[in-house]
């Protein structure tokens, strides 16, 4: 018996959220005696990167180096993971919640006749049955979910467990799987991605701007502060709707949901739909010139003031701290 972990990678590096999933799997295995934690990497990625799963808690890493799996092709990833799962004789699969992870996990649940629970925020409780706490209503509530199938897939939300960094290094073993043409029914023709930027859903610090910034030409202030904080940049829905910023930066109910340690909102009033995307943040700072902005009610710290005046000072103060 073992716990399998699906690793995602981008720009040649295993994603931090996937390493967190490994740490979750390790904690789960320790708690329930669920056996070895085996992480699986798909496509072209170097062994040194895969070995990081060892420090996060895996005892072994399997690598399916098939070049065609480097791109996140949903069906192909699901078929590859299903085969590895069966070969290893796993009982549980853990993965980080993401746009690719969700899609792969859904197909895997049917392939493996497994119960899939998404947005998992804590380790399972097994004192009576097998219960998992998951976030619902876009972070506005939790559901204690009873799982009634033998095989389980858990898609873990960011910050569900602390990332483990003291594990032993794990050996990387090459394995191969049989994939059919049908697994590659979708062809990726182009990828348009900002290279080297901190990925918004993964970021530990996020600086977001709203309509209070008055125009896309003023985003330099947001970017400068973000750079000082090592943060990703986000925006409100109106800002992406009018095209000041690309859609993948839209934070909120129908956009990206973030769970950083620190979320800084500048010139965003705090509509309930925006709050739904940030309510898992550990600490929220709001800067808005309107003292009545509803965002202040959801904030830990606030400054009532004009963004154009406060932002440069804040950037300087952060710089001075270093």
């Amino acid at each position: 018996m073992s716990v399998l972990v699906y690793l995602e990678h981008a720009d040649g590096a295993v994603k931090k959220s996937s390493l967190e999933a490994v740490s979750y799997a390790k904690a789960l295995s320790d708690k329930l005696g669920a056996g070895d934690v085996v992480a699986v990497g798909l496509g072209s990625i170097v062994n040194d990167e895969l070995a990081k799963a060892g420090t996060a808690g895996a005892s072994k890493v399997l690598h399916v180096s098939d070049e065609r799996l480097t791109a996140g092709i949903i069906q192909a990833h699901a078929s590859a993971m299903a085969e590895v799962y069966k070969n290893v004789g796993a009982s549980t699969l853990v993965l980080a919640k993401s746009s690719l992870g969700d899609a792969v996990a859904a197909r895997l649940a049917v392939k493996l006749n497994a119960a899939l629970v998404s947005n998992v925020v804590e380790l399972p409780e097994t004192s009576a049955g097998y219960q998992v706490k998951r976030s619902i209503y876009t972070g506005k509530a939790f559901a204690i979910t009873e799982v009634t199938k033998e095989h389980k897939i858990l898609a873990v939300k960011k910050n569900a467990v602390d990332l483990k960094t003291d594990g032993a290094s794990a050996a990387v073993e090459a394995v191969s799987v049989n994939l059919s043409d049908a697994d590659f029914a979708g062809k990726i023709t182009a990828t348009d991605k900002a290279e080297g930027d901190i990925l918004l859903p993964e970021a530990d610090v996020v600086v977001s701007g709203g309509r209070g910034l008055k125009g896309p030409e003023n985003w330099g202030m947001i970017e400068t502060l973000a750079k000082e904080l090592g943060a990703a940049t986000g925006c409100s829905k109106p800002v992406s709707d009018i095209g000041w910023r690309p859609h993948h930066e839209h934070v909120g109910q129908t956009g990206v949901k973030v769970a950083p340690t620190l979320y800084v909102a500048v010139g965003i009033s705090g509509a309930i739909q925006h709050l739904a995307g940030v309510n898992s943040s550990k600490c929220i700072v709001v800067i808005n010139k309107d003292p009545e902005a509803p965002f202040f009610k959801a904030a830990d710290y606030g400054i009532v003031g004009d963004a154009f005046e406060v932002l440069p000072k804040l950037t300087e103060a952060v710089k001075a701290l270093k």
Partner: protein
Amino acid sequence: MKILVCITHVPDTTSKIQFTDNNTKFDKNGVQFIIGPYDDYALARAVELKEQLGGSLTVLNVGEADTEPTLRKALAIGADDAIRVNAHPTDSLFVANQIAHIAKSNGYELILMGRESIDFNGGMVHGMVGEILGMPSFSPVMKLEIDGDTVKMAREIEGGKEQLEAKLPLIAGCQEPIAEWKIPNMRGIMSARTKPLQVVDPVSDEVATSVSNFQLPPAKGAVKLIDKDNVEELVKLLKNEAKVL
């Protein structure tokens, strides 16, 4: 082209989320229900595709009788007919089995739905239906165009997007900006009243999960306000008090 759009019936995004019966039931009191916002994007794109290519557009919901106004709204927006699977949507697997069964007997070429429901946020149903039917599934899809039997899509990935191509039939979980939400006009609302709405029984009662109870997050403490001329104080608090820097 034969299109199926699957919609959820969910609380309006501004709703206060509360539970009753010892935290085992969602409190519907004072809550307005809407077509899931992501499903609404899928529906809007389906209406555009039908206008462009002809064919039929069916809208489907798995839910009890109280979801019918939501289905009527979808008819008013432009669907030709509606199907309601008369059952409480217990979990994703249950819903996926219902959709797959209906899709199998009706031969839809394109099945669209939202990337996820905004109540349970699972984002699983499209993938499950795809796997049950042996059809490719894609999500989250932010652009979808039909060129003969080829579907050209853009899928959002972390930090950007990828362009994809696949052949019909397929399933897509949609999100903005695939299309603009459509507001029903008077003619649509009038015609929706007489469009067919078929009620069918569920085919399987298999579930993989059930909810034992609900919890609300702990209440947030009051905001600490810092003077705008003393920004250094904020940085100090973030470092020493909140310990996030």
